């Protein structure tokens, strides 16, 4: 499968293969994985003779769009961040934990400076910042660490249904250890209901975990209020601030946050590094996930990757300086995108609250359009690894399900990410392509025809064949 019998396509290598994925003993899903190089070719194979070079230049897609299933879009690193990291990848290669020589001292100084930069962004003390390998590790450390430390007296944790997979999975694994977890539902607009949160507290609750900004629908939770509620009941408050850090002002003392997860690559820093803020006053105790030489206050053993930590620090400092400018610009671009799409195309739903949101993450559902076809049609702007043809699961996102989106709307939702480096041209291009393909797909859709004729789709009785 994949090789032609006629003249060979350029380049001549298999361009697609069928993969069988076993979902359960009696169901398997066949997925056609199409090679990226082949997808990029604008020529249909066999149309150009083998002797001529590939006529169409290979054009990279622009990173603005992605299917849901988490924050798939990778944001580029800021050049200022790379500039700060390079000395520590070349000349200054010492281990920051070596106390006995100059290489170690420079590395340690750089690491401590980075720690201070991260702490300044969130209003913390630098001793409260622990470097980790990313927000996933930070989330695991916070949830499992706090739960296990206090497990003799407290066995209950509260979280929400729209949390990131790593938080939900950590909670699930704690359930097997004997903890009980309350997964709070969210309102239709994606926000947590504070009355329900208050009602969920039990005398043995040790931790509440609510993410600040949701990575799929962009809603901003009422962190101030949740912090107050938790502090009043002496329960630790953890927030996954990976999407919020550097984009909206965060202050751990103002918001009464006890633990916060930070991710490097969401704020234009390097991948593979993150941080966890652990409050010292009043002290939050954690059982460490990783045992070893006792680095990072004993909470996270292992050599701190100096270049990555320096990059994270630089990213935080740049984010603090650019926060206002970026926020204003991103809001304008988001407004432009949404207004243009909604004015040209009817029956588009924005998922998540309109007001309490971060503008750079927009999730739109296009009614009467098949979502996977739309994504394939938008491949110039789509991130190829997020496309449906290579993903094993065709399930719509659990976040959209939690906010009560209908199945069909959940399947046809697209998440647009706008960042520091997004240009107006990219937004206009995306909007134009989106409108064009939505109109085209709707023209082909029998459901759309029926809606135009005034038929209420919910009243139709579909016959089984």
């Amino acid at each position, binding site marked *: 499968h994949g090789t*032609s*019998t*006629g003249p060979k*396509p350029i380049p001549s290598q298999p*361009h697609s293969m069928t993969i069988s994925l076993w979902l359960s003993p009696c169901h398997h899903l066949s997925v056609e994985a*199409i090679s990226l190089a*082949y*997808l990029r*070719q*604008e*020529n*249909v*194979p*066999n*149309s*150009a003779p083998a002797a001529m*070079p590939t*006529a*169409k*230049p*290979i*054009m*990279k*897609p*622009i990173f603005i769009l992605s299917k849901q299933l988490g924050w798939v879009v990778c944001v*580029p690193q800021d*050049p*200022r961040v*790379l*500039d700060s990291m*390079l000395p520590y990848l070349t000349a200054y290669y010492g281990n920051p934990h070596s106390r006995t020589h100059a290489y170690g001292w420079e590395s340690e100084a750089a690491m401590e400076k980075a720690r201070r930069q991260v702490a300044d962004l969130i209003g913390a003390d630098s001793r409260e910042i622990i470097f980790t390998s990313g927000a996933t590790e930070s989330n695991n450390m916070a949830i499992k660490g706090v739960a296990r430390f206090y497990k003799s007296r407290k066995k209950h944790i509260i979280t929400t249904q729209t949390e990131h997979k790593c938080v939900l999975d950590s909670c699930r694994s704690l359930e097997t250890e004997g903890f009980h977890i309350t997964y709070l539902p969210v309102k239709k607009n994606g926000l947590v209901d504070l009355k329900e949160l208050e009602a969920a507290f039990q005398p043995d609750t040790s931790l509440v975990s609510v993410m600040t900004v949701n990575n799929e629908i962009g809603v901003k939770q009422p962190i101030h209020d949740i912090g107050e509620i938790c502090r009043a009941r002496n329960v630790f408050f953890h927030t996954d601030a990976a999407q919020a850090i550097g984009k909206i002002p965060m202050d751990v003392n103002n918001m009464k946050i006890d633990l916060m997860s930070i991710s490097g690559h969401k704020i234009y820093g390097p991948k593979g590094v993150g941080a966890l803020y652990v409050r010292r006053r009043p002290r939050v105790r954690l059982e460490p996930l990783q045992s070893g030489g006792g680095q990072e206050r004993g909470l996270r053993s292992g050599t701190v990757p100096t270049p990555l930590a320096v990059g994270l620090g630089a990213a935080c400092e740049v984010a603090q300086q650019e926060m206002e*400018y970026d926020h204003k610009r991103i809001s304008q671009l988001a407004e432009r995108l949404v207004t243009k799409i909604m004015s040209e195309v009817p029956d588009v739903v924005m998922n998540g609250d309109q007001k309490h949101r971060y503008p750079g993450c927009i999730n739109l559902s296009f009614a009467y359009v098949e979502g996977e076809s739309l994504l*394939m*049609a938008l491949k*110039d*702007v789509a991130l190829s690894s997020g496309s449906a043809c290579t993903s094993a699961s065709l399930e719509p996102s659990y976040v959209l399900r939690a906010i009560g989106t209908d199945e069909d709307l959940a399947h046809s939702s697209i998440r647009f990410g706008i960042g*520091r*480096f*997004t*240009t107006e*041209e*990219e937004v206009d*291009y995306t909007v134009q392509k989106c409108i*064009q393909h939505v109109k*085209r797909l709707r*023209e*082909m859709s029998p459901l759309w025809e029926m809606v135009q004729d005034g038929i209420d789709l919910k009243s139709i009785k579909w016959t089984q064949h």
Partner: protein
Amino acid sequence: MAASSRAQVLRLYRALLRESQRFSCYGYRTYAIRRIKDAFRENKNITDSEKIEELLNKAKANLQVIQRQVTIGEMYATEKLVIEYPIDIQPRKASNPETTLAHLQHPTVPPRTETAPRTETAHAHV
């Protein structure tokens, strides 16, 4: 003092913009040019000489960062983004709905005639 620092500011501004044009990455190039223009515009009414000196030093440091990053970008440059191409050779609007997905068809399907003229125009641009 005022005259020389004005000339100095303009010199730096032009140098920053000239250097930023050389970024091979679309996002960095557009961001740098936009940010430089906006930053200089934002600070154009400052009169305190100490503040001006501080800002100029920051600009000089940023110029060095840009110079280094432009060089590195050139060493590791990749293909241009779809948006950087002129509108006529960007992926064409489909007149026939099926041609958009033509490239995904199995290779033994005979090619559609509409794609033949497209390759000829693309040749002209290479």
